[in-house]
């Protein structure tokens, strides 16, 4: 059986091209392994081999993110690799970020399993831990031998689709991904045990640390709406009757943009709500209760607001992950801005 093909990414320094004075070199490729690639190749054993090494200067990558990525992907593509490894970057910040960025791009755009390695304080860890497995290393190249061995062994597991264990067992940075498993004790028992520890001032470990949602600084209040264009956005799951975008009744993975330009009030025969988290009876009787189009039209006619946008935007709020919700908002706010919308009323349920 032929060996699995691996492409390795390193920077100017580890490629032996030069130190800081060569950090501005653009991407280039070389056959086989280079520098620490030799030790990495050994740790891959008989099952895989490094067929090519791609190199880029750390500051070139940082200053030319898109071009560096595009050029590197072009080079990597042709090897038809089974696996991609970048680093180890230890505590070198620009290198760590480049390793994470290129590994993520290779995985997402070329569909090749990728892994990298760096020290916990490397900014690349926080930036890419959710996207990639990042093997832990010491904070300098003094750790190279151990790091490369860990990296190679883990990479093999990844490419062979073997079961990956906990961060502690496998030696990768905690990714921040909540993963289910069956404990040997039921939750209620663990709750009582945790209570006894806490109340007796003994150390205990919470099973979930409180998230920090971050704060969004609100825009300043609008004192005069009469010349402003307003749009309605809802998480109440109001969609056209046939739910053309198939928005889910919980844990929404999409949002929809729906035309209301010809209506003065939400027509019950054209719209419905598919939200699974509240009793829909009253909403179905009068959809304006969730998307207050009737009142907005009144305000438009009276000149209280300048104009109502032609469309409203909807998704389902219940169970929808913060990540998805954040993504929707970031995306459709671009459209709202492009369409001259200056303020939004969001109705939630």
């Amino acid at each position, binding site marked *: 059986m032929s060996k699995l093909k691996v492409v390795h990414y390193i920077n100017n320094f580890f490629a032996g091209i030069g130190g800081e004075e060569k950090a501005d070199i653009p991407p280039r490729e070389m056959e086989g392994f280079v520098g620490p690639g030799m030790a990495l190749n050994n740790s891959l054993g008989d099952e895989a081999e490094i067929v090519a090494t791609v190199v880029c200067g750390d500051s070139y990558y940082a200053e030319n993110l898109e071009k560096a990525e595009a050029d590197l992907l072009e080079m990597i593509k042709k090897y038809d690799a089974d696996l991609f490894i970048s680093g180890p970057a230890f505590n070198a910040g620009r290198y760590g970020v480049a390793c994470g960025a290129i590994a993520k791009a290779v995985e997402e755009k070329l569909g090749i399993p990728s892994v990298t390695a760096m020290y916990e304080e490397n900014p690349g860890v926080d930036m890419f831990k959710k996207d990639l497995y990042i093997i832990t290393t010491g904070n300098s190249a003094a750790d190279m031998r151990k790091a490369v061995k860990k990296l190679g062994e883990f990479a093999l597991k990844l490419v062979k689709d073997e079961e990956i264990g906990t961060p502690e067992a496998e030696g990768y940075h905690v990714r921040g991904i909540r993963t289910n498993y069956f404990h040997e004790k039921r*939750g209620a028992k663990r709750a009582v045990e945790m*209570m006894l520890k806490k109340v007796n001032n003994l150390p205990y470990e919470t099973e979930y640390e409180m998230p920090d949602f971050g704060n969004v600084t609100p825009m300043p209040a609008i004192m005069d709406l009469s010349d402003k264009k307003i749009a309605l956005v809802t998480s109440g799951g109001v969609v056209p009757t046939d739910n053309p975008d198939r928005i889910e009744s919980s*844990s929404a993975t999409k949002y929809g943009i729906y035309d209301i330009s010809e209506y003065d009030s939400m027509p019950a025969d054209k719209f419905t709500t598919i939200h699974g988290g509240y009793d829909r*009876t009253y909403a179905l009787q009068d959809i304006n209760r969730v998307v207050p189009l009737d009142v907005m039209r009144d305000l438009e006619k009276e000149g209280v607001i300048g104009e109502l946008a032609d469309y409203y935007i909807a998704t389902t709020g219940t*169970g929808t992950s913060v990540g998805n919700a954040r993504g929707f908002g970031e995306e459709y706010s671009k459209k709202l801005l492009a369409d001259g919308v200056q303020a939004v009323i969001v109705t939630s349920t």
Partner: protein
Amino acid sequence: MRLEVGKIFIEDIRFGESTHVEKGTLYVNEKELIDLFIEDDRIKSAKIELAKPGESIRITPVKDVLEPRVKVSGGGTNFPGVVGNKVKQVGEGRTHVLSGAAVVTVGKIVGFQEGIVDMTGIGADYTPFSKMLNICVVIEPEEGIESHAYEAAAREAGLVVTNFIGEAGRNIEPDEIEVFETKGIIEQAKMYPNLPRIGYVCMLQSQGLLHDTYVYGVDAKKIIPTLMNPTEFMDGAVISGNCVASCDKIPTYLHQNDPIIEELFEKHGKELNFMGVIITNENVFLADKERCSDGVAKLARLMDLDGVIITEEGYGNPDTDLMMNCKKVEQNGIKTVLVTDEFPGRDGKSESLADAVKEADALVSCGQGNIVITMPPMDKVIGTLEDIETMIGGYDGSLKEDGSIEAEIQIIISATSAFGCNKLTARMH
């Protein structure tokens, strides 16, 4: 209050000439059970079907699961205030349980929130009810019936059938008797002066129609926090009228078999002093949330507790109640442990809760409900599969041609119920 709970182990369920228990087998008579509620003009037709662990059966949409019990002595009757027209205090004397059997109410969906119980396969691993001998009451509502009327009809049918079946255990000698007792607050505190005084704050789902719980027949939306003896739960004082996301649901069966109450009694008198239960609700109005969380903290202080375990039913909106309860109790110098489930999205990368307070530093997780699994097709369906794709956890394309279901585990009854009845949990990877 002191309650003797006598368990009669049921090893098998079968149809029979009459509803009775004989040598560990529960016989049910279909006509007897249906006659109990079929005159209800909200119901068009009904049938009884049986499902046993390991059988290739899928039960869906499931509305409630209940345990057959009967009050043999001690005043009051099973399911006080919701069956028959008597309501008396319960929680004392002796109660018999047909242990191993359960009644499941099934029928076309009311809201989006009913779920699945698979008796075998991967889906069975996630629900406690795959291990029960299930007597399914399959209901067909009248045409055009209003959803609240349908929900009430199905709930009432389930209660009356379960109560009737429970009667079969009245004169049977239990296989095992366990005694549960908590005394009046001052006496209880004096009984174990050196053990930490622990209370259980039980949050009841009350977001509103189709998401309701009843206490002695009172809609939980209308209560303010109050004290209960843990044994009252064992006599069906708290019942579910709730179609919240199935994975999160606390069916009546689990109110009757509350795992926190069980675990606290396990250690009662040995490592802790179980003082009692504070029940509260999860109303959607901010004023109610403030009023009730203040009330919880006040009661915990009045009981002079050292710590409370707080559980919730539901996610999203009630996460706020959970956090408000936690914060206010902690600010009164009482330690808290929270029990809840998580919804960090299918990739597990988002925040698991909709709200957070820094005081919530001790949390037990019942697992994340967003992961997608594929449940194999079953030979038999009790109920109907037609609603799968609109049920919570389901989506366009969930129901495959071969009958298998690819969906979030949200769709499985009590897969992640936030009071720790299961072993499912989650960790950071």
